């Protein structure tokens, strides 16, 4: 079996004159945890959308588990074992938290096993206390977690997380990092984040996007000390008043 989970070659997408993603060669091994960082508008979310079939590439190709996803519908790509948490949470607002998770668990489980799987996920993500709440009435941060639960419940081989820690307090960020590490026991992940604390907590290899292309790809320490990365992305550290 091929150990390569994701492989893109010369991948690019343009809108009018905007090259949101521009000839990206990207490889991800099974079970890997990769962080993706880069300036606002660098093309990270667009890259995610290309991976899950929401955008059709203008150039290049995407292979998942050695299989080209060209022409596949997004549900077919999902069935290849891909789960995505979008930047703006995409959940079932009118349903309860439990129903949200059940729908996702039931896709990969028989109806008997689904109940157990739901319980497991709800415990892991700590959703049990709000199991009966309608998701539309949750706060922004709570909805992020629900979405994480939905994604984990399909037991994917690869999870794409677009800014999972956005809008969370430090303690919650830590909790999310633990979750991600736990999830990484079972599957590969690609995580986009702007929160460097968070990146340091979880990262092994980091890929930096800039203007639609890969700027650097290396271990987290090297990347965060790279001058170019500091230049386009990190800037100077905040001076605290304290």
């Amino acid at each position, binding site marked *: 079996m091929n150990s390569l989970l994701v492989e893109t070659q010369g991948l690019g997408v343009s809108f009018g004159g905007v090259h949101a993603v521009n000839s990206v060669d990207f490889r991800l091994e099974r079970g890997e945890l990769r962080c993706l960082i880069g300036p606002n508008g660098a093309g990270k979310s667009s890259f995610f959308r290309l991976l899950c079939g929401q955008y059709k590439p203008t150039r290049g190709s995407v292979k998942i588990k050695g299989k080209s996803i060209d022409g596949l519908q997004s549900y077919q790509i999902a069935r290849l074992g891909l789960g995505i948490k979008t930047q703006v949470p995409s959940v079932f607002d009118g349903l309860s938290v439990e129903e949200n998770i059940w729908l996702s668990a039931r896709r990969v489980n028989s109806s008997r096993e689904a109940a157990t799987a739901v319980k497991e996920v709800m415990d892991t993500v700590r959703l049990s206390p709000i199991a009966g709440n309608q998701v539309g009435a949750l706060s922004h*941060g709570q909805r992020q977690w629900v979405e994480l639960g939905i994604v984990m419940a399909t037991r994917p081989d690869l999870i794409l997380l677009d800014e999972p820690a956005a809008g969370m307090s430090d*303690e919650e960020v830590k909790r999310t990092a633990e979750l991600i590490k736990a999830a990484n026991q079972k599957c590969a992940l690609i995580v986009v984040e702007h929160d460097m604390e968070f990146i340091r907590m979880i990262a092994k290899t980091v890929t930096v996007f800039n203007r639609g292309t890969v700027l650097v790809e290396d271990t987290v320490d090297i990347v965060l000390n790279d001058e170019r990365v500091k230049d386009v992305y990190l800037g100077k550290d*905040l001076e605290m008043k304290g």
Partner: protein
Amino acid sequence: MLDIKDIHSGYGDIRILRGINLSLSQGEFVGLWGHNGMGKSTLMRTILGYLTATAGSISFEGQDITGMATFRRAQLGIGLVPQGRAIFPHLSVLDNLRMGAVSFSQDRDETVSSVLKHFPRLNAYLDRPGGLLSGGEQQLLALARCLCGKPKLMLLDEPTEGIQPSIISEMVDTLHRIRESTGLTLLLVEQNQAFIGSLADRVLTMQKGVLVNESSTRDFLNNTHAFASA
């Protein structure tokens, strides 16, 4: 300039805020901190009038605004950068900014271009529909749009969410500059402690719809763990 007395509010039958007291004085930068779902955004919405307070009173510059319509409060000089940005997706970036300056029909273009000076990145996208900007670009646009309305009091709801580190520090600089030149008052909801630390004069902590703590920024930063477990 903003005086909130024992405010209660919520969504329908669901009560979220349970007696908030808060005063901001002119030119002050105040941080508001708390876990997810504690009611920070709800407080912002209540101040601006999206939600009507079921009890208590709000006054702004000495004027009682408790029952006032949202647009009138905005006209008095309260501006909001909402969580989730609320960009007009089908208006161009420039039109989004002009919407922000809509009450100045005379010197609207000047206002817009003076704000744009603080946001050089947006200059490149003036004709692009707002909805197509990346998440972080939209956040900058929302901030710029709010400034175009020359607010006296700005409500900032998690502005760093999704923003790259270098822009966050630019944002801090920008806000300090604007504070100096206009005497802006700021109420800032944030989870990013570094950001709060570099902007706020004092920090309030919210828990389950009540303010449980107030401290200087220094104490806040030193006692992070105490707060986290609060």
